[in-house]
Each structure stands twice: as C-alpha cells, then as structure tokens.
C-alpha cells in the first residue's frame, strides 16, 4: 500500500518536472508607507495563493502565460481586485496600497481567505472557524460551539464542560493547542473540561487526522489549534464588549477586552466572567441504573457553575523580530449531578439542593489553570525562526462528602490532615520549549523543529485513582513542502520522539482485612509501586495535493503515536462517576496508528462540495476493557475494568455541501459516518466506546439585504438527524435516533458609525427529549438539555483610529 503511494507521488513529480518555461509575478502590499505582512493574495479567485512576508512582498511562480485576476482581502482594509496580463517571464507589479476601513474590526473576510489558503496549502484538509463563527454558534463551552462541524463532537459533563472528540477519538488522542503551545490539562477524564476561554479565541483550526509530526505524542486523532486574535494595528487603541445570555441554565457572560499599540509595542487584555444555574432537561425523572431520581422543576440537580478568566498579552513587533508574552488564568467551579456521583446512585438532601438552582453544593469540581509563555520569531536571510517557552499549571480539586467504601472506616478519622470533603486533587506543572525554523529552498518550504517538556504531577485527597508521577518528552522533526507546480503540492515529514514517565508509590491510609493462611490480618494495601517506563517512536507522513481550477484533491498517509498516560499505566481505584474499578497496566506499549486520508472537493462562488474519507488502523489501541471479574480489596466489590491493547480498524467520511440556490438564499449539508471495530482482544468484534452514530445536519440560510446601517443579516434554520447507535461495547447502552431543530439569526447594526453585532439562537427548538451517545451522562440515561435561547451582543470600540494620512 505504502509502496504504491510513494510510486504514484514519484510519477507525478516526474510528469511535472518535464514541464518548463513558466512565468513569475512579484509584488508588494503596503498600508500608507508600512508594509503589510501576512496578507493572503489570491490569484484567479483562490486557484493559487501567496501570503506576504514581513516586507509585504509576495510572488507567484511557474505561471502559464495568460490573463490573471489578483484579489486581496485583509482585515480592516477595502478589498482589492486587479487584472494582470502575463506575457513575459517576470511581471513586476507596482506597489499595491490598501485602503483602510475604519471601524470595521471584523475578522471574517481574512479568516475566509485564510481558510481557503490553508485548505490549499496543506495535504490534510483543515477546518477553520473565526471568532464570529464561535459567537454565532455559541455553546456552553468552546467544544460545544464547534459541534456543527462534521466529524467533531464534544464529550461533555453538565452544561459548561466539554472536550473534543474527533472522529470518535478524544481524551489524550486529541491535542489542544493554544497560541502555539500544547494545552496541558487533566485530559484523561470525561468530566474534565478544557480550561480555555472561548471568547479569547481569534481563530480555531481543526485537523482531523494524524498530526504527530508537528505536535508529537497524542495527536493521533487530530489537533484543535486555538489561535489568538490578530495583533492590533499600529497606533490604534480599542476594545470590545461581548454579552451572552442563555435561557436554559440562566447563564450570563460578560467578556471585555482592550488593546493599544504604538508603532512597536502593544498590550491587550481580556476579562471573561460567566455564571450559570442548574440546566434543564425535558424530563421530570431520570433512571440511574434503574434507580428513579426525581428532578425538581426539570433541573439537573447541582450542575450550576461559574468561571472567571483573565488574559494579558504584551509584546514588541519589529520588522524582523517579534516577541509576544501571554499570561492567563482560567478558573472554573461547577457541580456534579448530585444523584449520580459516588459508589451508587444517591438519594440526596433534596431540600438542600433544590433550595437554590444557582448554588454549587457537593459534589463539585474546581479547576484553576495558569499559563505564562513567550513566543519570539525572527526573520533573517529567508529564514523564519521561532522560539517558544512556557510554563503552565493545572490545579484540579474534586469535592465530595466522605463516603466509606471497601474497608475505609465508617466515620472519617479526626486525625486525617486531608479535608474530609477533598475527594481527589491533581496538581500538574508543565514547562515546555519549542523551536522551529522555516525557510524556502527553491520550490521547497523546509521546516525543522524540536520540542521538549518536563511535567510534575502530584495528588491528594482521601480517595485514590492514579499515582503521582513525573514525565519528560523530547522530539525533533523535519518537514518538506514541495510546490511542484502552482496546482501540485507534495509534502513529506519525519519525526523522532523519546519520553520517560516515572510513577510514584502510594499506600492506602486505611487498613484492609486480608486473609492469609486462614488468619485475618489488617494490612495497608499498596496501590502503586515505583516504576519507570521509557518510550520512543519514529513517525512519518507523506501527502499530495492537487488543486486544478475549482477542484481540490488531497491524499495523506502517516503514522502517529501516543505514550500511555499515568492513568493507563497506574490506575488502581474506583471511578466514582461510573461505579467501577479501573486498573492500569504498567507494561502497556506506546499506542501506534496508521491513517490514510483522502479529500476531494469542488468550490465555486455559488456552490461547494467536499468529501473526506479516511482509513485508520491501530496495531495496539489502548482500551479500558470491562472484564467479568469483581474485586473487593481495591475495587470495593465493583466490576474490574482493565487497560489492555487490541488491534482496531476504523474508517469513515465527512461530507460538506453548500449551494446558494437564490441570490440571498443558501443551503448547507454536513454529514458524517464512522465505523470502529476491534480486531483482537477480549472485545473482538465490538466497536469502541463513544462511537458517534451517523448524522446529517441540514441548514437553510436567508441573508436579506436591508437598508443602510444594517448588514450581514442572516436567518438560519438547521435540522439535525442522528441515526440510532446500536453498535455498542459494555457498559454502553444503545442510543435511539433523534431529530433536532435549531434556529439562529443575527445582524450587524451601524448607529452613528458604531457597529453592534447581535446574534440570537434557539437551540433544541421543540424541547425534544433525546439522548446523545457521546455525552458523559449517557450511561445514566440523562437526556440532553431542553430548549435554550441564546442572545449574544458584541460591541467593538475604537478609541484611537490609525491617522488618516498614514493610510
């Protein structure tokens, strides 16, 4: 298989090297007298793309003689169109001066052209969404806001916490990158959200496919790359206020940001505060393992929460050097559904819990995440080098009333120094370093890079699940993007990684009854032994992209790997969310994955179609296997779930269609299909947990053109049909099919030169009672949130506009 791909790539190369005698266009873009860097220049409406360098220069190589149209769209500037006749071998264009659009702080157009560029300049097909998209589709958390993209799901707990699931894989198989650096939270649990402020994201890029080359271990299923908004323009000051309200859980959010920049220095800051009540479901009783729990006023008891996020960024922008510091603190506290946490379904003090729907009682979680990083880039002699250093801390506490199980004392002993309500605590500190250099060598864009990180994890609390550990990783890669022809791109990459994890010992604080030769003794059981594991891996990737006219064809094949995490190696305790005993295996191998991705698309101004199938094989997928056994020492009589490895095959596809059938009307369709199968091990023939069922999202949008002062108005009706998921693996339950309707509308109003953006959404229009197969609470048959009306308002403010003369 691999041989054949390599052969076809080589054949293509030969065919295109034979062609010669091409022309070249060079030009540069300025605003006033300042060169504009990073602007996308489109040739023939996006057939070929170029991005300006730090001096505003751009070029197109290997053009056939003829007529071309050049289009430039940049944030805050009027669009530029021009026709060029290419008759000579070198066409030097006069300097293009873009006209500034004052007060138009919109990033939509630049994101659209950026997305088009990324889709053409990569052999894997990424999805790119803007801040505006996030606001229009605002869900309870960043991942919930991205769920309309095919192949993307959020696996969530409650209304405010969710993490990404890409083509059915999630947790540590997806890397989340914020401002260029891997976000290091407690990725292993379905109850852990992402400690990321969705209001601070300027752009989100999602790669559904192996991305181990750039990101190293863990990027098996893909990457969610959260990028900061563009730097402010020189000599401007401004800010924005965004307000969001939601009816279902009485949520309010205020997010305000401010920025200022001189020629070289800039400072930006943001504060986001959120508070929400218990969310509501269209049911008055839920059945947790056949135990009926009544819900007061349809509210999921104790799922309220609050968040407070702070960001500060400052830096210096030179012609050839740019250095940016980012500091952030995200804090969240939220309750767990009180009836479904602990060793069994619990009867709770309903009077206490139901007295207020805004308070957070036990059980609850509290997470604070700090980040401090610097990213410095240099441009010299055709090189673009980047150094990034960062420190982050994730401090997570899970609070619950002491519940004795197994041989724990019935009453919490007074001599214990751990608070009686501190069930679990995880404290992770990660220091990282990233290096990268990119340069042009003929038609090749060559990137070399390296990364290293060291992490320390400590634990606390009266219950035990995973041991404390330290870990370090190092990796280096070489990546070549070869532009054979304006329409042909070949990429090849190789990466080496090495990592070491050191597990710390842990002994119970209480004695268990152990029967030895007929004598019953009291013993403090050891749950984790000192252990050291090392892993290394060589990964590779090769791809080809062909973009003739309106068409797009891509093929990429690559390998990825993932070092087993501490939980998989050393878990030895009861998981209170699922009433089960989870047991790690210190001898697990690094998980490997091979994936073939193909994409084909057609795009015009009126319509577009993209289909992206994939085939994925794991020789040793790490799977938490429910066994037939029970354990009474470590598992308090619960069923034993053991980490094992099995061969897994997966395939699927996503389809995206857009058609503008009338001048102001457009229709869209996004469909996804996924098939998972275990080929060996105890669950041979079964699927993998959390496999989303096939689903289709159809939408119709009307964009009327109103009188002056009102623009970008839209009305959208969306209809999601999800099939039943009958392929399950213990302990899952089959999930019936469902249909869901969403309505959204929005506009941009201009009053006295001040734009105001308004977005309205009605999620689950008909208050449908349905189950989501990838929801954390699916196992206890808790329906998803009922009707939710979301109103968002954004007011961008510009205190100091760029001086008119300089533009």
């Amino acid at each position, binding site marked *: 298989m691999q041989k054949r791909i390599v052969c076809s790539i080589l054949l293509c190369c030969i065919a295109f090297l034979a062609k010669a005698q091409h022309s070249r266009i060079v030009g540069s873009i300025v605003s006033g007298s300042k060169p504009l860097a990073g602007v996308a220049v489109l040739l023939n409406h996006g057939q070929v793309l170029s991005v300006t360098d730090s001096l505003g220069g751009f070029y197109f190589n290997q053009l056939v003689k003829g007529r071309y149209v050049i289009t430039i769209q940049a944030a805050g500037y009027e669009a530029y169109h021009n026709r060029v006749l290419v008759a000579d071998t070198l066409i030097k264009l006069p300097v293009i001066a873009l006209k500034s659009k004052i007060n138009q702080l919109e990033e939509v157009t630049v994101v659209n052209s950026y997305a088009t560029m990324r889709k053409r300049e990569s052999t894997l097909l990424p999805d790119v969404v803007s801040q505006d998209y996030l606001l229009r589709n605002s869900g309870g958390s960043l991942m919930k806001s991205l769920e309309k993209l095919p192949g993307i799901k959020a696996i969530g707990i409650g209304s405010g916490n969710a993490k990404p699931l890409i083509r059915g894989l999630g947790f540590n198989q997806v890397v989340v990158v914020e401002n260029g650096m891997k976000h290091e939270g407690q990725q292993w649990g379905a109850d852990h959200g992402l400690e990321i402020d969705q209001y601070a994201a300027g752009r989100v890029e999602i790669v559904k496919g192996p991305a181990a080359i750039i990101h190293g271990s863990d990027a098996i299923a893909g990457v969610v790359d959260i990028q900061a908004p563009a730097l402010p323009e020189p000599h401007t000051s401004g800010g924005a206020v965004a307000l969001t309200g939601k009816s279902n859980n009485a949520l309010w959010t205020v997010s305000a940001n401010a920025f200022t920049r001189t020629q070289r220095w800039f400072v930006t800051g943001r504060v986001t505060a959120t508070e929400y009540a218990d969310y509501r479901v269209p049911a008055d009783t839920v059945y947790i393992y056949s*135990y009926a729990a009544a819900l007061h006023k349809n509210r999921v008891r104790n799922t309220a929460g609050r968040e407070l996020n702070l960001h500060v960024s400052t830096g210096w922008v030179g012609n050839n050097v740019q250095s940016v510091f980012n500091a952030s603190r995200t804090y969240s506290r939220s309750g767990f559904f009180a009836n479904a946490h602990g060793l*069994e379904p619990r009867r709770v003090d309903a009077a206490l819990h139901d007295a207020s729907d805004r308070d957070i009682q036990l059980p609850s979680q509290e997470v604070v995440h700090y980040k401090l990083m610097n990213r410095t880039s240099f441009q010299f002699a055709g090189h673009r080098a980047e150094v990034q250093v960062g420190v982050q801390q994730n401090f997570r506490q899970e609070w619950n009333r002491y519940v004795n199980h197994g041989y724990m004392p019935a*009453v919490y002993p007074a001599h214990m120094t751990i608070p009686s309500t501190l069930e679990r605590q995880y404290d992770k500190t990660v220091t990282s370093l990233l290096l990268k250099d990119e340069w042009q060598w003929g038609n090749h864009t060559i990137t070399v890079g390296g990364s290293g990180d060291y992490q320390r994890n400590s634990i606390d609390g009266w219950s035990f699940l995973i041991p404390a550990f330290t870990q370090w990783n190092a990796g280096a890669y070489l990546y070549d993007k070869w532009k054979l022809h304006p329409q042909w791109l070949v990429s090849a990459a190789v990466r080496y990684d090495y990592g070491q994890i050191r597990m710390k010992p842990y002994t119970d604080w209480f004695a268990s009854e152990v029967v030895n030769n007929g004598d019953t003794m009291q013993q403090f059981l050891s749950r984790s032994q000192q252990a050291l594991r090392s892993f290394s891996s060589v990964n590779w990737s090769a791809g080809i992209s062909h973009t003739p006219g309106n*068409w797009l064809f891509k093929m990429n094949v690559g390998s990825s790997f993932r070092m087993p995490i501490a939980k998989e190696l050393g878990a030895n305790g009861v998981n209170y969310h699922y009433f089960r005993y989870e047991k790690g295996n210190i001898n697990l191998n690094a998980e490997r994955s091979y994936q073939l991705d193909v994409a084909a698309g057609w795009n015009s101004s009126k319509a577009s179609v993209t289909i992206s199938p994939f085939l994925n094989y794991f020789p040793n997928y790490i799977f938490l296997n429910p066994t037939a056994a029970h*354990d009474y020492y470590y598992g308090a009589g619960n069923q034993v779930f053991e980490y094992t490895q099995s061969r897994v095959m997966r395939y699927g*596809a996503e389809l995206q269609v857009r058609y503008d059938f009338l001048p102001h009307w457009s229709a869209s369709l996004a469909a996804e299909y996924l*098939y998972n199968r275990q080929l060996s091990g105890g*669950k041979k*023939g079964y699927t993998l947990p959390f496999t989303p069922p096939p689903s289709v999202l159809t939408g119709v949008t009307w964009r009327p053109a109103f009188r002056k002062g009102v623009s970008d108005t839209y009305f959208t009706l969306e209809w999601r049909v999800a099939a039943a998921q009958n392929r399950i693996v*213990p302990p899952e339950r089959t999930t019936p099919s469902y249909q869901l309707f969403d309505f959204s509308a929005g506009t941009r109003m201009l009053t006295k030169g001040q734009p105001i953006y308004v977005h309205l959404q009605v999620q689950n229009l008909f208050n449908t009672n349905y189950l989501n197969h990838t929801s954390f609470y699916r196992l206890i048959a808790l329906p998803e949130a009922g009707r939710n009306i979301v109103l968002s308002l954004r007011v961008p403010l510009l205190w100091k506009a760029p001086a008119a003369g300089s533009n």
Partner: protein
Amino acid sequence: MKRNLFTMLLLCAAVLAGCSKNDEAVDSEYPVIDITGADAFPVQCSVLERGKTVTFKARFTDNVALGSYSLDIHHNFDHHTHSTEVNTCAESPNKTPVKPLVFIKDYTLPAGARDYTATATISIPADVDTGDYHFMIRLTDKEGWQTIKGLSIKIQ
C-alpha cells in the same frame, strides 16, 4: 473536469461500499439476577440476625455465559441510597455508625454456565451495629455486561 468528477464519484462509491458491510453478531445482552424464587434470600426488606449464619441464594442466567458475582453489605444509617427495588421498607431513624458490618466478597461462577443458582454463606458477627443496610448483588457475564441489584435489608 469529467475525470475529476469521476474520481469524486469513485470516492463516494468506495465510502458507501464500506458502509454497507455487515457485522458478525456480538453479545449485547445483560445477565439476569432472579430473586423471585421461593427460596431466594435475601429479598427486599429481609431481616438478617446478628450472631447467625445466613445463606445467600439467587438464580443467575445469561444468553451466552455467566462471568462472576460480588456481594456487598454496607450500612445505610444515613439513608444515602435507594435500592433498585420498587417497594420501600420501613426505615429506622438516621444514626452515626460505631461498628457497622462491612462485608465485601467476590465469587467465581462455573465457566460457561448459562443458568446457575448461586449460594454463599455469610456469617453476621454478634457485635455489629443493628439497623438499615444495603445488600448489593453485582453480576457480570463473560463479555463484561453487568447487572446490579440493590436490596434494602435490616440487621437485628
């Protein structure tokens, strides 16, 4: 143009062909705990006496093969949970445990058994706290499907 269209259709066809593949049957049925038999013990609201030995008895069935079971008796002095049974029993007032009975034990079942009546003897020490307890039966089948039954009992 035509060739491109053809490539795209071929891709669609390949995906659809992949979708239509059928699965060989895997076991997706839960094992069953049956305590409706005349001699099943304990049942909802049963009373266990201190200083005596009681015999647990229940019928377990599964469509393919049974796995194992575990029994767990723990106090419910704070009335923290509810049994899985529909009818409720009269409860004594809440109290703080002094020396509650803790009984946890897992048991194997004959390999390949599909219908098995399990028995186990449990001795109740004479000095444990009396009052409301839970009696949990957890049963798995070979594939790892688990059924839980929680009974409210009393120790006197």
